């Protein structure tokens, strides 16, 4: 008897998993035993890989960017669907690829429903912010954040139920309201603790999400611990937040408060830095700010790698465990590619803009004519949108795809034989959550 079947029978004894159709186990055993059944023989059972050619993705993105521009963004529902179809269907686990079954029309309808709900809310916020004091506007912001988290959870449900693997879909239970309450509380704690609560927030929120995630009848869970992430992320925290705090303290200490109080305290700048007890402060401010920005820019790929590795390695579906060996150098490589393309694009766009501006000054008949001004304004807006979309497309094709590919290829799956005995469960969820996330700009992929 082959090893796969042995694991299967062990699994069913241990888990007492309900069989949906009698005789299924026998079928699988015979299929697994038959070498011809291994359709993709180059892919061992525990291997995840990404088989998508980059060229296809570049093609989708470049056309998508052009169409986004000419439809002022309406095309995004189709582009998002294309991107997901590409990413999902080219992701292969144990020889079988995923399927994204969502459609652009679902996203469009979800979005339309979401904005009909949001418009009265926006009007209410607008009226509330007219009331005196910051209280109501802060409350409005909090409500928007809350709604954003609600949308994140509902959008995740939509995406999961549109993810199909071996003819069985993923699904998600759990209350989106409850999740958003947790998320708001955890984020408040993160801010209060200067970021130290972040690992625990991530771990708890992921616990919540995964506890309510299922692949067919196979329940998901999350085993990453906040302490683990804290230990791994602490050096990063020490490199960014700690110098920032020291800088802030140094700024406060270096102010000569006596000198400051003796001058007119109401308007500090008016007295001049040299006289008013603020000598040397600009230097500290500049150094702190520069260090903070540089360290964040340089360490972000490290942070991303640590977070992804921790998150992936904590994912469980039944007995199936995931482990990621994502390497920091590879993520840095992904960003290096982005900068390479971005520099090339900047040079090209710069030359085009200069040539176009020169040509326009000849044609439009100088800036004094009304027509010339309208043409110039419309063209500048178009150029701005085109350049922004160019960077967006480069980012998607290098960073998004690159990280996705690295992540998939870094995965090690154990007990993946369990994935051959999962029974279908769950229904397709409504796309309103996606629409809400889109309208609130909290969308993911």
């Amino acid at each position, binding site marked *: 008897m082959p090893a796969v079947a042995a694991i299967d029978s062990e699994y069913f004894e241990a888990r007492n998993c309900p069989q949906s159709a009698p005789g*299924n186990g026998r079928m699988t055993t015979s299929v697994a035993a038959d070498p*011809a059944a291994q359709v993709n023989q180059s892919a061992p059972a525990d291997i995840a890989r990404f088989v998508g050619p980059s060229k296809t993705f570049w093609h989708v993105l470049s056309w998508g960017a052009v169409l986004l521009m000419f439809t002022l963004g309406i095309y995004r529902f189709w582009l998002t669907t294309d991107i997901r179809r590409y990413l999902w269907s080219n992701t292969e686990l144990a020889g079988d690829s995923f399927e*994204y079954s969502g459609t652009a029309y679902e996203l469009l309808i979800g979005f339309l429903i979401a904005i009909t709900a949001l418009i009265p809310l*926006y009007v209410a916020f607008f009226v509330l912010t007219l009331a005196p004091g910051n209280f109501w506007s802060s409350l409005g912001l909090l409500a928007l954040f809350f709604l954003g988290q609600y949308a994140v959870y509902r959008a995740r449900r939509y995406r999961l139920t549109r993810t199909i693997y071996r003819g*069985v879909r993923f699904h998600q239970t759990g209350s989106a309201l409850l999740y958003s309450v947790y998320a708001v509380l955890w984020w408040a704690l993160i801010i209060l603790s200067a970021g130290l609560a972040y690992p625990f927030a991530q771990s708890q929120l992921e616990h919540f999400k995964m506890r309510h995630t299922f692949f067919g009848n196979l329940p998901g869970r999350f085993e990453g611990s906040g302490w683990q992430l804290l230990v791994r992320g602490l050096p990063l925290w020490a490199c960014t937040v700690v110098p920032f705090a020291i800088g802030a303290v140094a700024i406060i200490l270096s102010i000569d408060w006596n000198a400051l109080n003796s001058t007119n305290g109401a308007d500090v700048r008016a007295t001049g830095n040299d006289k008013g007890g603020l000598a040397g402060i600009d230097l500290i401010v500049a150094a702190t700010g520069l260090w903070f920005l540089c360290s964040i820019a340089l360490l972000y790929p490290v942070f991303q790698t640590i977070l992804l590795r921790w998150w992936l390695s904590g994912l469980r579906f039944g007995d199936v465990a995931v482990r990621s060996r994502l390497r920091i150098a590879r993520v840095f490589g992904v960003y290096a590619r982005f900068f390479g393309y971005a520099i090339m694009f900047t040079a090209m766009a710069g030359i085009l803009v200069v040539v176009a501006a020169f040509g326009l000054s000849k044609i439009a008949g100088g800036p004094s004519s009304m027509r010339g001004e309208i043409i110039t304004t419309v063209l500048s807006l178009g150029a701005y949108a085109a350049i922004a979309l160019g960077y967006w497309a480069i980012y998607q094709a290098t960073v998004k795809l690159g990280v996705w590919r690295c992540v998939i290829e870094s995965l090690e799956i154990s007990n993946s034989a369990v994935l051959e005995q999962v029974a279908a469960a769950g229904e397709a969820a409504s796309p309103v959550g996606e629409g809400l996330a889109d309208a609130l*700009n909290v969308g993911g992929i």
Partner: protein
Amino acid sequence: MNAPNFDSSNVHGRATFFDGLTTARHDAVVEFAPRILRVHGADGRVLAQWPYDELETRSSPDNVLRLGRARDAVLARLEIRDPQLAAAIDEQSAPVDRTGRIERGLRIKVIFWSCAATASLILIAVVGMPLIATELTPFVPYAIERKLGAAIDAQTRVNFNEGKRSGTPLDCGSAEKEQAGRAAFEKLIRQMETAAGLPLPIKATIVRKPEANAITLPGGHIYVFEGLVREARTADELAGIIAHEFGHVAHRDGTRTIMQGAGVALLFGMLLGDFVGGGAVVVAAKTLLRTSYSRDVEAAADRYGVVLVSKLGGDPRALAAILSRIDGGTHVGPKILADHPETRDRIIAIEAMATSTPRGPLLNQAEWAALKSICAEE
């Protein structure tokens, strides 16, 4: 039933089947029966019988044709890696879209309709929004306008303070030696307010800004810039500009602009999504729309100003005089973005309207001299 014809043909009928009930992978053989595609398991059992016209292509990697059955709640999937078999199924079934040709046709329709929707939205923003805002503005209660004005006023003061020279207060007229100027300014404003009879009180102030300009916010907030006071040669010139601003208050232009701007922001910002920090595009579009609309608005405010100054017995032509002087020097940036376009036409229109004979300046010599030095404190 006839004998399966895949045996006799040279088409390889091997595929992978997932029944949608479990994840078990079935090694399957595909049979081309009349009108239906029949899927057999390795043991000969029939796993699925799908009519050709109910087959549906599902997203898959390039080298796999993945089929499902349309409108089927069960997610059964047939996966074909053999290109010859895939081509044979494509030939049999109309909806199967192996090459993506059907999808491309649909996509072209989508692109066409998206572009049409975009054109219609731009039309709504340019033509519809000003009309809607004009129709709705009279229905905004003055209590709401005053609250809106207070919120915008607070923000405007923050903006003014950022660009200002340090050390002096924003408003002129608070220092000891500015008191006489302030009294003169108050007198001028009260005169005008009495004559105008507006439904809400005017809060006018002179601020330390070098430009020769004046702005009106919703809720009767009027800001006269120091540069304008410096530029004015007579009290009637200054009164002409302020009366023009009273016109904006009376016509509720600020409120209408805010509503129009909010409508455009909602339309482009939220409806279309923020695909590339679209905020900048929205702001630019709003500015363009506002200025393209402002010509009629400014002309109406000019008319109001001329009538008001005439009513007070001042010189209504003074507005034309000061406009002709400040137009030359203060324009920065392209004219389409300037708030007072086509100044020449405005001056001609004002002079045609201003037929009343002035009864004398609105402030006496001493008051005007005091008002001129209202921003004396440096």
